[in-house]
């Protein structure tokens, strides 16, 4: 049988990553700004003060410019599951498709229906109905995120399903397990709050620019207070959910954690790298040091990962070699198998699946049942059977490591930023400290960097898995020519970049015009 062209997998990954990263430039602002707008409009309805109406409409205009391209890139992502990852679409469509369909029915319609009233309904519906539309738009956008993040979390931690060898796919057994899996809850909360922080920093940055220019002073000052309170609460919550995420990664995706920390050899009392430069020569299994330079917080990684300084954190080499104790998904302790053994188990599972199908078609029930036994015994390693070498399970360590550290550092920086802005705002010192206004303004691109690096950690860190342990990306692609994916990739680069430049241009012009130029 012809072998698959591996560059097809790489180009398909690149295309999906490109779309997802562009999508995530626009979505987080939508998630948070929708709530900030609804809060401002609530002030308007409560007080009847036209100032709040003007302020609401100003931020709403920026929201609308951003929303359009977020929607456009979103549709591409949904359809790319079919166009570029068709095998995946069948293998887990029974589980993954459901949240997507529910998103469409429940959330996306809500958002897109009420957004029309939000923009054009000022003179067509009552004040209260308009306010309700603004809140429902915000809720719809966040509900939309809920369902897609549930689906994404399931890929990181597959649960509530079983493999059906007769249909050759995974089938959902318990919807509540999928919806309320601890990874899903945490992923949703962590991701949407990162969107709230993005919006808060964006509002803070734009408002700071007005103060620097000595324009729209009242709008800017009031917006800063609202954004900073919203941002501070969100970023504190972000730290909490980030901590839970790290614990879940340690338990369910140990290789990702090892990559996040550049940890090759596991240890108890593992330290957390506060600052470090990876050794670019380092490879799994060699004796070279992993870092050229690092500053560690002693025992912090063990504590953050497993709640105890004496906890053992396995490194990349340990995961390849196996032999250490860990807690499995059933909550029991067991000895980790070497990756080579898991590859062998995976191959047994895949072969047993093939033999089961042949025996079942021939009507040989006894033989089919024997093969089914082998398949079930080894299914936990099913996806490993598509890999050729143990090192295939190592993600891109430098990209994961640096992304993780940038994300965390920026997360703490934003807390400091919000605290400082509130301090200056309540003491009416904002305009006196121009350096702070400049920092706030320059933080705007940084919050986007934080969001992007967060997704890189989550997605690059879990490679090669599309579905953790069950399906690697090499088994998930569509059978298309690599050249076709290359062409569409280039077209996406061109069109997304062009639209991004257009969006930035429009945003800047609109901000420059200010609330009076809103139309």
């Amino acid at each position: 049988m012809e072998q698959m062209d591996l560059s097809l997998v790489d180009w398909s990954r690149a295309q999906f990553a490109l779309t997802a990263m562009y999508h995530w430039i626009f979505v987080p602002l939508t998630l948070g700004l929708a709530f900030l707008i609804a809060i401002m409009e609530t002030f308007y309805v409560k007080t009847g003060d036209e100032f709040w109406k003007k302020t609401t409409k100003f931020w709403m205009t920026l929201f609308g410019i951003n929303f359009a391209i977020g929607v456009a890139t979103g549709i591409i992502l949904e359809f790319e599951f079919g166009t570029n990852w068709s095998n995946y679409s069948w293998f887990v469509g029974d589980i993954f498709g459901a949240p997507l369909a529910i998103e469409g029915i429940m959330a996306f319609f809500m958002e897109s229906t009420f957004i029309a009233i939000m923009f054009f309904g000022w003179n067509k519906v009552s004040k209260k109905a308009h306010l309700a539309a603004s809140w429902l738009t915000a809720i719809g956008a966040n509900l939309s995120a809920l369902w897609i993040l549930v689906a994404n979390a399931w890929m990181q931690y597959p649960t509530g399903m079983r493999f059906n060898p007769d249909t050759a796919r995974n089938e959902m057994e318990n919807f509540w397990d999928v919806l309320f899996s601890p990874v899903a809850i945490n992923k949703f909360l962590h991701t949407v709050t990162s969107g709230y922080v993005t919006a808060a920093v964006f509002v803070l940055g734009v408002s700071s620019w007005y103060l620097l220019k000595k324009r729209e002073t009242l709008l800017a000052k009031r917006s800063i207070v609202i954004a900073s309170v919203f941002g501070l609460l969100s970023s504190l919550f972000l730290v909490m959910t980030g901590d839970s995420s790290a614990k879940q990664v340690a338990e369910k995706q140990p290789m990702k954690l090892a990559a996040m920390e550049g940890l090759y050899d596991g240890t108890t009392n593992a330290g957390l790298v506060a600052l470090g430069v990876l050794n670019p020569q380092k490879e799994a299994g060699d004796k070279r040091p992993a870092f050229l330079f690092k500053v560690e917080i002693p025992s912090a990684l063990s504590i953050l990962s497993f709640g105890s300084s004496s906890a053992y954190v396995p490194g990349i080499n340990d995961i390849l070699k196996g032999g250490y104790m860990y807690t499995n998904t059933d909550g029991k302790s067991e000895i980790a198998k070497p990756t080579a053994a898991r590859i062998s188990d995976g191959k047994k599972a895949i072969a047993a699946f093939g033999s089961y199908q042949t025996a079942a078609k021939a009507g040989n029930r006894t033989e089919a049942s024997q093969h089914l036994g082998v398949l079930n015994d080894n299914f936990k390693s099913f996806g490993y059977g598509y890999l050729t070498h143990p090192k295939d399970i190592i993600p891109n360590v430098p990209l994961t490591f640096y992304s993780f550290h940038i994300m965390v550092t920026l997360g703490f920086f934003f807390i400091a930023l919000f605290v400082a802005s509130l301090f200056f705002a309540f003491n009416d010192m904002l305009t006196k400290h121009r350096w702070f206004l400049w920092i706030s303004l320059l933080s705007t691109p940084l919050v986007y960097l934080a969001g992007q690096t967060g997704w890189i950690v989550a997605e690059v860190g879990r490679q090669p898995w599309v579905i953790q342990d069950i399906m690697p990306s090499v088994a998930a692609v569509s059978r298309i020519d690599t050249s076709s994916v290359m062409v569409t990739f280039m077209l996406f680069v061109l069109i997304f970049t062009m639209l991004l430049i257009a969006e930035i241009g429009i945003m800047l012009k609109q901000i420059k015009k200010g609330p009076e130029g809103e139309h």
Partner: protein
Amino acid sequence: MEYTPTLLQEYWWFIVSLLGSLLVFLLFVQGGQMLLFRIGKTAEEKTMIINSLGRKWEFTFTTLVTFGGAFFASFPLFYSTSFGGAYWVWMAILFLFIVQAVSYEYRKKPGNLLGSKTYEVFLFLNGFGGTFLLGTAVATLFTGGNFYVNKMNLASAGNPIISSWANPWHGLEAVADYRNILLGLAVFFLARILGALYIINSIEHETIFTRAQKLVLHNAVPFLLTFVGFLISIFLSDGFAINPATSKVYLLKYKLFTNLIEMPVLLALLLAGVCLVIWGITSTTLSAKRSTKGIWFCGSGTILTVLSLLLSLGYNNTAYYPSQIDLQSSLTIVNSSSSTYTLTVMSVVSILIPFVLAYIWYAWRAMNRKKVTLEEMSKETHTY
């Protein structure tokens, strides 16, 4: 093995078909975009048209996304086979929809990089290409695709892909079948008719009314020719039937026509739909009374017609996505569906659909209570 669809599979084929028919109705947005330069001669006229369509574009977009999501969830094998196989057709449709989404919001904004005209051209292209390609893609449900499906491939670690296309054209070959082109053109002209009728209904402007009325008539003739031509061609073609005793797919003469005779409710829906479409067109163009309600007749007629045709594809032991290369790879509502459990979960969620339709209706009425006028455009603080 017997071929016995469950109620859930039939229910979800109904939901997907309903979403498909709503999508075709909502293509009036694309139809209106195509007519932008024909109906709107001045900048004000164009702005009125774009603003009336712009308040509805998200319904079309959302329905397309939900249609895709519902297909993925209920019939994932179709999703993986059609999207992964007919790659170029779907990619072309996606590109045309990306440029639409931004055009409304960017067109009049200063600093938009490309200038207003470019975004208007994007809207035109979305209408022109989007309707034709969607029609052609849907037509392949009637005429078939060049694909193989072999789930056993999953047991091959070196090449585990289960669905594959039999030629390098990846869907572009659909335009070589005249029946696909006929449906593509029928959807194209129907969208233009619906677009013109919607503009008549939502904008108060005498010149725009007159131009749109003329265009309804001009597009009605090619629409009827291509649609009737398509119906005749598929009714006279061999259909892809399933032997209920063995689940084997085989070719059967006049299968789709027979389906309508054997399911008279669908035949009634089709006839009612066609009559409503014709009434919508004639009441707007030929009646002595000035009518702006044509969109409602034509729209509901479109929904009934498309629903009846799509339902006839999946019911009555028919393969809804036939393989021209390997009959037994053809997709049916049984062999391509999600599990009973998943369909049940989604069916519970589908109870919400009437609520969704209710608030969409509320929003539509609220926004269309007052027609778009030049005066409104000058007063409105947010325009496209």
